């Protein structure tokens, strides 16, 4: 490069449903705790936003161990939504995260649509929460345990209830374990969601052939990490063609190129989960790498990458 040409700074900031993220890299729910745990290794300030571990109304102990296991280029987990409950979250966890100046998105889950609505209402008033991400991959106890995210009508009615309960932007997090993720996305869009994030983990299982036992205490779990990236890219690509809502891409992202792929497919931001376990510096490296990617491709700002896939 010509040494006399000043390198034009790349604007990494992106806008997602009214929020301004200083960069497109978001910590994925459940992989970053409540922010404090990684404060030294992967400071909240490195991320465009932080999504906290799913909270439920009451605290949850979670599943019996083992809860995590490594698989080929991935891992499965069955944490069982272990969390401190919404009240302890607001009281003990949120203040610290606020002091770091992080943009905080709270992720919620319930056993019934009413529980989701109550959680949304409770969080809506709380200072320091920028948006709500709704984890719809949970079993709906009222409907035989079938996940809320599986049926377009159920997902839509859940979205409507949460929207009614909260003035904050509502991001609905989609499950990939469905026949037609675009249909769910459209239903959720029509129901008033402000943004979509995808994908949550794929259903998976591991067996210990030596002990002839399922590895996980919960028998089955959720698959994440680089192994699922092609599935996640497929889902993001399908959903971006089906809806106009902003989409946040998730699944196996560990490099700036990975992040760029999701943005090219139409995502306006990305979440990083499993990669942080392997490399706590991943988010920072991805944000930097996206700036370099923009420079190479002549994009003035990171948001220009979104949808810039040649047809």
């Amino acid at each position, binding site marked *: 490069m010509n040494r006399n040409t000043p390198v034009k700074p790349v604007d990494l900031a992106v806008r997602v449903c009214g929020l301004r993220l200083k960069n497109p890299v978001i910590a994925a729910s459940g992989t970053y705790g409540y922010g404090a745990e990684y404060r030294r290794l992967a400071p909240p300030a490195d991320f465009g936003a932080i999504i906290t571990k799913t909270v439920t109304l009451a605290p949850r102990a979670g599943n019996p*161990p083992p809860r995590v296991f*490594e698989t080929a280029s991935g891992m499965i987990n069955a944490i069982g939504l272990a969390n401190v409950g919404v009240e302890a979250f607001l009281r003990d966890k949120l203040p610290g995260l606020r002091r770091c100046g992080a943009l905080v998105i709270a992720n919620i889950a319930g056993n019934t649509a009413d529980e989701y609505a109550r959680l949304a209402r409770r969080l809506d008033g709380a200072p320091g929460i920028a948006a709500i991400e709704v984890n719809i991959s949970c079993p709906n106890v009222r409907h035989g345990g079938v996940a809320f995210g599986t049926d377009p009508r159920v997902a839509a009615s859940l979205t409507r209830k949460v929207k009614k309960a909260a003035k904050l932007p509502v991001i609905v997090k989609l499950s990939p374990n469905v026949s037609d993720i675009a249909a769910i996305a459209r239903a959720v869009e029509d129901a008033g969601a402000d943004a979509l994030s995808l994908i949550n983990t794929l259903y998976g299982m591991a067996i210990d052939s030596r002990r002839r036992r399922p590895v996980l205490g919960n028998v089955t779990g959720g698959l994440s990490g680089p192994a699922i990236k092609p599935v996640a890219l497929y889902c993001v690509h399908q959903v971006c063609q089906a809806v106009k809502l902003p989409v946040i891409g998730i699944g196996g992202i560990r490099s700036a190129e990975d992040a760029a792929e999701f943005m090219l497919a139409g995502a306006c931001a990305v979440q990083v989960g499993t990669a942080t376990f392997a490399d706590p510096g991943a988010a920072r490296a991805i944000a930097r790498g996206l700036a370099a990617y923009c420079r190479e491709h002549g994009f003035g700002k990171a948001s220009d990458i979104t949808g810039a896939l040649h047809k």
Partner: protein
Amino acid sequence: MTCSANPRPAESQTAVRIAGNRRVGAGVHLLRFRAPAIARAAQPGQFLHLLAPGMALLRRPFSIHDIDGDGIAILYRIAGQGTALLSRLRQGEPLDVVGPLGRPFAIENGRPHHIVVAGGIGIAPLQLLLRRLRAAKLSPLLCYGCATKTELRPHLRVKRIVATDDGSCGAKGFVTAALEAALDRYPGAQLYGCGPWPMLKALAAIAARRRLPCQVSLESFMACGVGACQGCVVKAVDGYRTVCHDGPVFESAAIDWDQEPVV
């Protein structure tokens, strides 16, 4: 969070080069590298989360075996793909190290005796503990059990009782039996242990019966290593606790010993 005082040393992510990596026993290797910040800060019982080039995805946790100036030593047993890969790395190759992590052993100066109980590779975190106990003039006793004589590691010169499964050195049988036989001579001792679950369970039972304080170091599959994912829990009497952050060192009385973890 950032504002609260934290008594534990600050962890960091550091790129190091391997200074040495050699076999020291059957399937047991000793890895060495320089990491001044960790060497200064780390306390016995803490661990490092290692990523070696070629490792598939997740890091692997290893106790800090010893510290010598700026140098760190890790004593490890080949248990699977990750440790097999580690054992093939040579001097000069890179390693990515996160740590020091986890709750260390607490050295209880007030106690009249200090007994350190090791089973097999469980000696790994105890060498540094023994060193620090000795430095504090607490003249620790080591009770060391392993399968056979050749598995015994050379280590610090401390008083010791040895037990081997095959009787090739010391008493034949479980180290906890040997410990039990000796305990009358050490009233009010502080116990520290690391080793296989059944050994620790027996140790915890002895401690409970004799009302002795006992700290044990536990293991679990790990993902984050910092308490963020809730992936590495063990069952404690009052619920699940993370091995990486609430442990790896626990009071033995706090653990539900009927819930053997699968590792």
